[in-house]
């Protein structure tokens, strides 16, 4: 079916998604071995903690630094300095890759939306990249810190909003998340131990072009919807402590998904004259196994609808805001989508909140 907005000629296009992982791979068993000694300082039943790590169904992670470099990172400054260095390096790789795939150059970029939750920098990372890549002097910058895992989808939505106002422009959504550099090794709480089993490092960059930009092609961002869940501040986030970012993670996330996502998705799709059955391509943030199961259950998704999200979770872990962009990139490259088919990006993050982005090929 075709909705009025599905034929919206002002809807921006997604041209490409670049993706990169840092070079230092560690399997889950290598990571467990590295953590055991640390856990033994406080915990008695180490097998229980190993099971927690294995239950997140992540096979391994790509780390920003060699595994033996992490114990030396003690202060926030040490962690954040490493984050700035590595996020800039990985950011450069994915911006170059994304622009090349879109047959564009840094000179073509009008606006960069940079999203992250794993480090802070002033000037922010996109400014540092401007000096490496030579963006134009009038390029606009929107660094966004704090949206967490939702920022991949939310960044796409905000970039699309911008491109509706400036339909000849080109925008980048750049995500660089180095979760391993936030790990508080001395925080031996269970939420931190689970987080240390789930989150990985990676960067992604999507190139979007306005509807009137030359050579625009690819799926269009038809519409987006943000959802804020009141009084859920302690579901997920950081407690900022002297040594950096200490994770706040509640087990209520899967239940929140189960309780709300069906109503949120159906309500959003209805505004576009669509139903769940009209969505052919699901692009879900890889929150964790229970979150993906909750998406499948609440949305009554067909088997394998989230296969790319499951594969990404197993291969690289939860990359925070970069995850949904990884799944989007794989969808663009692996799926032979037909013109007129719809896709839905979904992510959730601290707030607690959700973002949905409707795509049409």
């Amino acid at each position: 079916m075709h909705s009025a907005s599905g034929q919206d000629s002002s809807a921006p296009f997604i041209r490409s998604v670049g993706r990169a992982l840092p070079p230092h791979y560690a399997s889950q068993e290598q990571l467990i071995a590295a953590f055991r000694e640390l856990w033994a300082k406080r915990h008695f039943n180490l097998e229980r903690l190993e099971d927690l790590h294995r239950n997140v169904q992540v096979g391994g992670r790509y780390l920003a630094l060699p595994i033996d470099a992490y114990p030396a990172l003690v202060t926030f400054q040490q962690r954040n300095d490493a984050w700035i260095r590595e996020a800039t390096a990985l950011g450069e790789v994915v911006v170059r890759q994304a622009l090349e795939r879109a047959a564009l150059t840094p000179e073509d970029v009008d606006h960069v939306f940079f999203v992250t939750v794993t480090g802070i920098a002033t000037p922010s990372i996109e400014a540092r990249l401007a000096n490496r890549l030579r963006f134009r002097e009038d390029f606009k910058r929107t660094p966004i810190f704090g949206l967490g895992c939702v920022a991949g989808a939310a960044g796409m939505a905000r970039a699309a909003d911008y491109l509706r106002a400036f339909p000849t422009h080109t925008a980048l959504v750049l995500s660089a998340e180095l979760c391993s550099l936030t790990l508080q090794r001395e925080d031996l709480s269970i939420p931190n131990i689970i987080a240390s089993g789930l989150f990985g490092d990676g960067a992604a960059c999507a190139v979007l072009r306005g509807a009137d930009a030359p050579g625009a092609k690819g799926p269009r961002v038809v519409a987006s919807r943000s959802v804020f869940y009141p009084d859920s501040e302690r579901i997920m986030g950081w407690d900022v402590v002297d040594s950096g970012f200490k994770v706040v993670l509640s087990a209520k996330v899967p239940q929140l998904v189960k309780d709300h996502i069906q109503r949120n998705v159906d309500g959003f799709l209805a505004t576009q004259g669509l139903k769940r059955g009209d969505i052919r391509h699901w692009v879900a943030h890889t929150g964790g196994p229970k979150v993906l199961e909750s998406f499948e259950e609440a949305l009554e998704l067909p088997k394998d609808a989230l296969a790319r999200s499951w594969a990404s979770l197993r291969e690289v872990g939860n990359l925070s805001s970069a995850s949904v962009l990884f799944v989007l990139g794989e969808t663009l490259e692996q799926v032979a989508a037909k013109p007129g088919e719809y896709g839905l990006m979904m992510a959730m993050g601290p707030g607690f909140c959700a973002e949905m982005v409707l795509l049409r090929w």
Partner: protein
Amino acid sequence: MAELELEVVAEIRRIAADELEWKGVVEPQHDLVRDLQLDSLGLTVLAVGLENRFRIRLSEEDAQGVRTVSDLAKLVVRRVASTARPPTEVRS
């Protein structure tokens, strides 16, 4: 209530307040899920805290039939007793 059981209940109160941000009271008859609103992560935090404090191991099978604070305290007391028992010599 035996002394050790009282000690376990006190430790459950400490974990609830310090690690689970529970601001209400904790009584032995309280249901862990219904009254203390513990989810799977909260129950894990509680189990790990008790394992650490009393140097025991609790398993999924142990959790069968554990519904209240009192049930949990009694389970920990039983596990402490079985863990502390000196090994008996096996004679053939």
